[in-house]
C-alpha cells in the first residue's frame, strides 16, 4: 500500500450510506417484523418495570382484550375499519406529497353533518336519511379539505400548517354544536342520538351490528387501490408527487389535480366521521376523532400508500390500543399506556424504514471501498 492510498484510507469514514435500488419483499417484510418484535421487547421491559408482571402474561391479556370475546373482536374490527377508512382517504393526498394533517378536522365536520341529519331529518324514510347522511358527510369533509387545497394551488400556502389549524377550527365547531344539541340540558354532551327509534343508525347485516362498516370500508379500500394504481387520475397524482415540474412539462394541470385530489381525500375523511357517528358511537363529541386522524397519517405513510398494507398496520395499531386498555384495567393503570406503547412501536417501524431504503457499507480492512 503506497502513501497516498494510506491517506485516502485514513480519510474514508467508517460507515458509508448508499441508497438501495430495491429489496426483495421477504427481506423488507422481515426487517419490519424485526422492528415490531424489538419494539415489543422494549415495551415489555417498560411494562415489567412499572407493573412487575410477567410481560408474556401481559401480552396474553392484551390478546384477550382485543379478541377475547366475539363482541370484543367486532369492536376491534369496527375500530380497524374506522382507522383504515381515514388512512385510505389520506392516501391520494400523501401520494401527491400534499401533507393533509387535517384528517382530524375533516372527520369531525363529517360527524357534525351526520349528527345534524340524524337530529333534524329523522322523520325521513330510512333509505333517504341514509343517503342524506352519506352525502352531507362527504360534502362537509370535502369542503374542509378544499379550503387549504385552493390556497395551496393558487398561492402555494403551506398546507401542513393550514390543515393543522383547520383541525382546531373544526374542534371548536364541534364544541359549539355539542353545546347547542346537548341532551340532557347541562350535561355538555349530546348523549346517544335517537336512542329509542334508532333513526339513522347503521342497520345490522347478517345479524352483525358493524357489518355495514366493514362492507363500506372494504369497497373504499379496493376502490382506492384501483384508482391510484390503474386510473389516469391516479397516475397524474403519482407524477405530481414525484415532481411537479415533470407534471407541468407533461401537460398535467397541477392546480386542478391538487384541488380534485383534496376534494376526494377530504370527502373520504368526512365519510369516516359518518362511520364514527352513525355506525359506531351514535353521538358526537370533540373526541369523536380522538387523534385517529393523526394516527392514520402514520398508517398511510408506513403503508407507502398501498391500501392493502394499511389493513395490516391499522390492525396492529388497534390491537395494541385494545390490548393496552385491557392491561390498564387489569393492573389498575390508566389507558394512556396504549399511546405510550403505540409511540414506541411506531418509532421502531419508522427507524426500520432506513434499513430498507439504505445500505450501510463499512470500511473494508483491505483498504479502498468495495
Amino acid at each position, binding site marked *: 500500500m503506497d502513501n497516498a492510498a494510506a491517506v485516502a484510507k485514513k480519510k474514508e469514514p467508517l460507515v458509508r450510506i448508499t441508497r438501495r435500488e430495491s429489496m426483495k419483499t421477504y427481506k423488507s417484510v422481515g426487517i419490519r417484523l424485526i422492528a415490531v418484535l424489538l419494539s415489543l421487547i422494549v415495551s415489555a421491559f417498560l411494562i415489567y418495570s412499572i407493573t412487575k408482571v410477567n410481560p408474556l402474561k401481559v401480552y396474553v391479556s392484551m390478546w384477550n382484550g382485543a379478541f377475547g370475546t366475539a363482541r370484543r373482536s367486532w369492536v376491534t374490527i369496527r375500530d380497524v375499519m374506522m382507522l383504515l377508512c381515514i388512512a385510505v382517504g389520506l392516501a391520494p393526498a400523501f401520494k401527491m406529497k400534499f401533507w393533509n394533517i387535517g384528517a382530524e378536522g375533516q372527520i369531525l365536520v363529517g360527524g357534525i353533518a351526520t349528527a345534524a341529519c340524524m337530529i333534524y331529518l329523522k322523520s325521513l324514510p330510512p333509505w333517504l336519511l341514509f343517503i342524506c347522511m352519506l352525502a352531507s358527510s362527504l360534502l362537509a369533509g370535502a369542503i374542509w379539505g378544499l379550503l387549504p387545497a385552493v390556497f395551496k394551488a393558487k398561492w402555494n400556502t403551506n398546507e*401542513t400548517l393550514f390543515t393543522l389549524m383547520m383541525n382546531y377550527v373544526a374542534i371548536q365547531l364541534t364544541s*359549539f354544536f355539542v*353545546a347547542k344539541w346537548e341532551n340532557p340540558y347541562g350535561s355538555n354532551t349530546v348523549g346517544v342520538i335517537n336512542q329509542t327509534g334508532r333513526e339513522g343508525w347503521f342497520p345490522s347485516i347478517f345479524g352483525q351490528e358493524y357489518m355495514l362498516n366493514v362492507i363500506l370500508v372494504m369497497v373504499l379500500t379496493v376502490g382506492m387501490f384501483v384508482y391510484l394504481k390503474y386510473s389516469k387520475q391516479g397516475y397524474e397524482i403519482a407524477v405530481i408527487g414525484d415532481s411537479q415540474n415533470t407534471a407541468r412539462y407533461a401537460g398535467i394541470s397541477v392546480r386542478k389535480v391538487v384541488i380534485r385530489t383534496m376534494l376526494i381525500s377530504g370527502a373520504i375523511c368526512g365519510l369516516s366521521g359518518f362511520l364514527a357517528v352513525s355506525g359506531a358511537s351514535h353521538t358526537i363529541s370533540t373526541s369523536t376523532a380522538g*387523534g385517529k386522524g393523526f394516527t392514520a397519517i402514520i398508517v398511510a405513510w408506513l403503508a407507502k400508500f398501498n391500501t392493502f398494507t394499511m389493513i395490516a398496520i391499522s390492525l396492529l395499531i388497534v390491537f395494541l390500543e385494545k390490548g393496552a386498555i385491557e392491561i390498564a384495567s387489569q393492573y389498575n393503570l390508566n389507558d394512556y399506556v396504549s399511546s405510550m406503547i403505540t409511540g414506541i412501536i411506531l418509532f421502531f417501524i419508522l427507524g426500520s424504514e432506513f434499513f430498507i431504503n439504505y445500505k450501510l457499507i463499512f470500511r473494508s480492512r483491505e483498504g479502498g471501498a468495495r
Partner: protein
Amino acid sequence: MTGFVSLFQAAVVFGTVIMFGSVGETITERSGNLNLGVPGIMYLGAIASLAGSFFYENSVENPSPILCVLIALVAAFLASALGGLIFSFLTITLRANQNVTGLTLTIFGSGVANFFGGSLNTLAGGVGQISVASTSAAFRAGLPLISGGSGVFSQLFLNYGWMTYVAILIAILSQWFLSHTRTGLNLRAVGENPATADAAGANVTAYRYLATCIGAGISGMGGLFYVMDYTKGTWANDGTIENLGWLAVALVIFTTWRPKNAIWGAYLFGILYWAYFYIMGLTRASQEIFKMLPYVVTIIVLIMISLRKKRENQPPEGLGLAYFREDR
C-alpha cells in the same frame, strides 16, 4: 377596568406557556426541521418536572425552594431535549419523514405524560392526585423587590411568577442569537438551503441536531410552566397541554419565524383565547366559536404571508425537507 386587568393577567399566564413552546420551535424550524412533536415535547417537559419535584418533595422533610426549582428545571429540560433527540435521530440520522415522526412523538409524549401524571401517585403508594405544592410555590414567586405592588401598572406587568420574565428574556436572546451571531446566521442558512450551507462549511447534521434538541428543551419549559404556574403543581388528564402545544406551533407561523414577535403574539393569543370570558351575553355555545379565534387568525396570517410573498416573512426554504449530501 378590572375586567381588562384580569383578562390581561389571564392572557399573560396563558401566553407564557405558548411563548416558551413557540420560541423553542422557532429555533428548531429555523434549522429546517419541522417538528410537529411540540405538544408531545411540552408533555414530556411537564411530566418530568412534576415527577422530579414529586420525588424530591416526598424524600425530604422541608424541601428547599432553590433545589425544587433546579430539579424541576433540569428534569424538564433533559426530558424534552431527549424528545428532540429521538426526533433528530429518526429524521436526521435514519432519514425518517419529519411530519410522521413529529406526530408520533406527540402520541408518545402525551401517552407518557398522561400515564405517569395519572398514576404516579398511585405507583408511589399515595392516594389521590399528584401535587407538588412547595415547588409550585417556588415557581410562582414573583420577582424580588419589584413585584407585590397594588397599582394598576404593577398588576398588569409586575406581579407574575418569575418564569414569565424568563420567557421574555429567552425570546429576546433567541432573536439576538438568530439575527446577530455567526452561529445563528449559519443556523438560518442551514434551514434555508442546507446544500449551500454545507458547501460553505457548516456542519448541517450538527446544527440540526443541536437546534432541535435545544429548541425542544425550551419548548419543554412551556410544559413546566403549565404544571407549576398555570395548574399550581397538579396534573389533569384533560389534554390541555396538547391544545396549547398546537397553539405554540400556530404562534410560530404568526410570528413569521421571529422570536421577538412571540412576546406580544403570545399575549395576543391569550387575549383572543380568553376574550369570550369577558364579553357579556354569550351563550355557552357561542363561547366555543370565540375560542376559534387564535386558529382563525393564524390561518389568515398564513394566507397573508403567502399572498404578499415578502421574502423575509416566508417559512425557511428547507423547512420539512431532509438533507442528504448524496442526493442531488
